[in-house]
């Protein structure tokens, strides 16, 4: 492993251990499903935009919306301010729409879905069955039956394969379906909310997404409803040279609650692939949304070949008083990440929270953080960001905390810590703090350090090998964030933290 070749073997670690680590394949979702696919022609132009709209059986207004987005996108230039470097993307040299042939006629129920697709999700640990199971946790089958239900919307390249528990959710009044279905079935909701949090021309990638988004999830929680189960969307990129542009819209009406999980993986390939998603969340009065992501796109190999370019716009609008949103993200994958889940705290006493672990190993580059825009009175926000860099990776926290003049008595606390493993990587912090009234308090703290030798020594003394010891120390470093995750994600994330760092110690 290249990262290891560059690092001197430290005293106390024998070559065998290093070699053993070298053998381990670190990305376990790198396999590919062989399935017949249907593609739109390569490239992007108004015809492709129309074609995507047609494939999704969209009404005319949606097609127009997309076309006007495309028109704007053509006039925009790619942003260059992030601390990431990657070769110029040829937007005309990739597919914008790919769906399994078996999905041309959308299956009426999960029983009719192509077994190959079901097997894919099974293998990923996301069985598309309506059963009580802790998704993604090994050995969960043996656990007592009180495991929570999780409804899954599975997105495979450009289309949603199926959504579980739809009937049961319907009984509670919850709408959980793919966005293409929502555009057809609930146009009034989509028209009202789509693009209301992330405007069409918000930024280069969001505008591109507005033009060519193919699928994604739609969630509507009616007033005073606690969503009876956790909702989750699992994104899988499978086809080669294909960009995934998903669009998620979550609306939590007055007094409702929902916890939403998102997972993503992709096969191991030599060429980089683009993923540009937009997530919009609307939180009305007294409502609460928890949005958790475990992002594990293929990060590229140890020489920096391939991987996903993850350019994502996520934003929550806390419109109502006392509304609350909580973003939790574990970012271990992707070759390049450019992602700033944000909160617009418009309602009085609304709250925004952001917990993040970003791990960059080998040649990964992550530029991620959040924006907390305080507009309402007595609003609160909290940011806890833990960045870990290893190999020759670069990890940047970039964030904004803005207290508007009218956001009286608001409060922000920000903590961003960076941990460096090895002397070839970088950790950076770029916070913007804007305070425009004096009754608000803003506190920002950041530290950068390396894995404490004494802690490592302590662990090793008790028989752990160096890798295990680092994993333990790193998990301790991430504790604040891991605790904020729903249980099944926390366990997966903990394992991911260990896996992502494999091979980073020498």
């Amino acid at each position, binding site marked *: 492993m290249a990262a290891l070749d560059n690092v001197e073997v430290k005293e106390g670690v024998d070559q065998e251990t290093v070699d053993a680590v070298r053998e381990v394949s670190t990305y376990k979702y790198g396999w590919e499903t062989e399935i017949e696919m249907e593609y739109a022609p390569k490239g992007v132009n108004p015809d492709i935009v129309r074609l995507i709209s047609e494939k999704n059986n969209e009404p005319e207004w949606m097609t127009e919306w997309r076309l006007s987005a495309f028109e704007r996108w053509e006039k925009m230039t790619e942003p260059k*301010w992030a*601390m990431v470097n990657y070769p110029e993307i040829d937007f005309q040299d990739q597919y914008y729409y790919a769906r399994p042939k078996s999905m041309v006629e959308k299956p009426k129920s999960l029983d009719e879905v192509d077994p190959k697709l079901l097997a894919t999700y099974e293998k990923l640990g996301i069985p598309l069955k309506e059963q009580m199971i802790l998704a993604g946790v090994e050995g969960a089958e043996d656990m007592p039956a009180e495991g929570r239900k999780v409804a899954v919307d599975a997105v495979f390249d450009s289309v949603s394969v199926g959504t579980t528990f739809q009937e049961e959710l319907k009984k509670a009044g919850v709408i959980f379906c793919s966005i293409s279905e929502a555009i057809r079935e609930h146009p009034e909701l989509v028209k009202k909310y789509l693009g209301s949090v992330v405007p069409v021309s918000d930024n280069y990638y969001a505008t591109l997404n507005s033009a060519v988004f193919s699928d994604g999830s739609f969630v509507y929680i009616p007033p005073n409803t606690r969503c009876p189960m956790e909702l989750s969307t699992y994104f899988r990129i499978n086809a080669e040279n294909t960009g995934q542009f998903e669009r998620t819209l979550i609306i939590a009406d007055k007094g409702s609650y929902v916890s939403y999980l998102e997972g993503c993986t992709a096969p191991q390939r030599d060429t980089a692939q683009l993923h540009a998603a937009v997530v919009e969340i609307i939180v009305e009065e007294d409502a609460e949304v928890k949005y958790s992501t475990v992002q594990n796109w293929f990060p590229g190999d140890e020489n920096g070949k391939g991987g996903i370019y993850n350019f994502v716009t996520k934003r929550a609008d806390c419109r109502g008083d006392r509304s609350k949103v909580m973003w939790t993200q574990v970012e271990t994958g992707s070759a390049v990440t450019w992602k700033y889940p944000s909160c617009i705290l418009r309602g009085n006493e609304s709250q925004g929270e952001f917990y993040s672990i970003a791990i960059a190993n080998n040649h990964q580059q992550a530029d991620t953080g959040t924006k907390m825009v305080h507009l309402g009175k007595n609003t609160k926000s909290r940011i806890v960001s833990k960045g870990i860099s290893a190999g020759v990776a670069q990890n940047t926290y970039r964030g904004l905390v803005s207290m508007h*003049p009218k956001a*009286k008595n608001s409060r922000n606390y920000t903590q961003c810590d*960076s941990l*460096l*493993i*090895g*002397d*070839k*990587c*970088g*950790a*950076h*912090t*770029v*916070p*913007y*703090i*804007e*305070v*425009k*009234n*004096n*009754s*608000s*308090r*803003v*506190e*920002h*703290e*950041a*530290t*950068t*350090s*390396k894995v404490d030798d004494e802690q490592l020594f302590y662990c090793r003394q008790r028989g752990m090998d160096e890798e295990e010891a680092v994993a333990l120390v790193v998990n301790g470093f991430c504790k604040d964030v891991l605790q904020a995750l729903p249980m099944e994600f926390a366990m997966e994330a903990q394992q991911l933290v260990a896996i992502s760092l494999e091979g980073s110690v020498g």
Partner: protein
Amino acid sequence: MALPQAKIDATDARLAGMDLPQGGWPAECRADALARVQAMGLPGRRDEYWKYTNPETLISAEVPQAALFDPQEPAMFDGVDRLKIVFVDGVFDADRSDDLSGEHLTIDRLADVANLDLHWAKDAYGTLEAKGQSPVQRPLAALNTAFATDGVLIHVTGAVSKPVNLIYEHSAVNSDAILHHVVKLEAGASLTILENGPAAARFNKVLEAFVADGAALNHIRTQGRDHERRAVTHMFAELGAESTFKTFTLTANGVLTRNECIVWLNGDEGVAHVAGACVGDGDFHHDDTVFITHDAVNCESRQVFKKVLRNGATGVFQGKILVKPDAQKTDGYQISQSLLLDDDSQFLAKPELEIYADDVACSHGSTSGAIDEEALYYLRSRGVPQGEATDLLTLAFLGEAVDEIEDRDLGEMIVERLQGWLTRHRR
């Protein structure tokens, strides 16, 4: 990348009325600097580095006027045993300045050196400014190198006991002063530089400091109490092994101030402390922009900035610590805090870390808020009137920055001035 037309136009407009001083060895340095200005263009509101400060009045062809202001108190460092060098609206005043000589010290005026064969200065003038143009551009500093009309070139070969005091007076409402100083401390030398006064209606100043191994440069400055002056200053310092550079700036009002401080720790075990206290009431915009590069082992850097703002005043802090790959054992610390005394004032900060070495301890903190009501209540319950109690707490807040001044007497002078300012600006 080609410059936007608006930027080219703004730059041309500013340069149109300016003549490049001719003659002697500086001519080449000036021409190079002018080329840099033209390549970069002067700063505009859309530049990321000027996100929080509008440079328009700093680059306008016409000088914004500044009414004269009599502070009715003795000038800042009166009473200190020092070597005085006086500039009025950027013009050297020989009568009121002391002899430009001293033990271990040679001082020359930039305006005089054209025909002197000043080897050390030839290799120094404009070099740190040029180096400081990357990774972030500082076109106003290059403009200074090109067009500076005067300044002092100080060469220090040993421990200098008397501080050198650069005094800047303001006497014309539309003066536009550009001064460029170069200070070179040889190995083991030490010097204290004091600077005070508003200087001009608009002031562009650059100070380049070369601090060799084991040398120590102390710098304390106050920027006058003139209510309408505008200033952009750059301080570039390059530090050798085991050297120290400590700088403190007090800013009390002034319509617009942008102080940039750029430090390179190039030798092992160097120490750089950059501190500032500012108090602003009303039409006041103060911007501290600091960029510290650690490029050697075992160095220490500290940034301590405190701002007290009221009546619509704006405080800006942009601080950066860059730790290069081999700068192991770096100890970097940065704190920026603001006390907003009312709802109209604002604090905008961008405290950055960019770190490429793993064995480092770097931290930064930034806070903003109102005066602590509980502490205020405590003082008032013990009979301290509201106004005094507020001043007391404000002074304690600023104290942490003033404490960065090593010389206790000078520190006390600063505290006294702060006290006076707070009393005058009490609500």
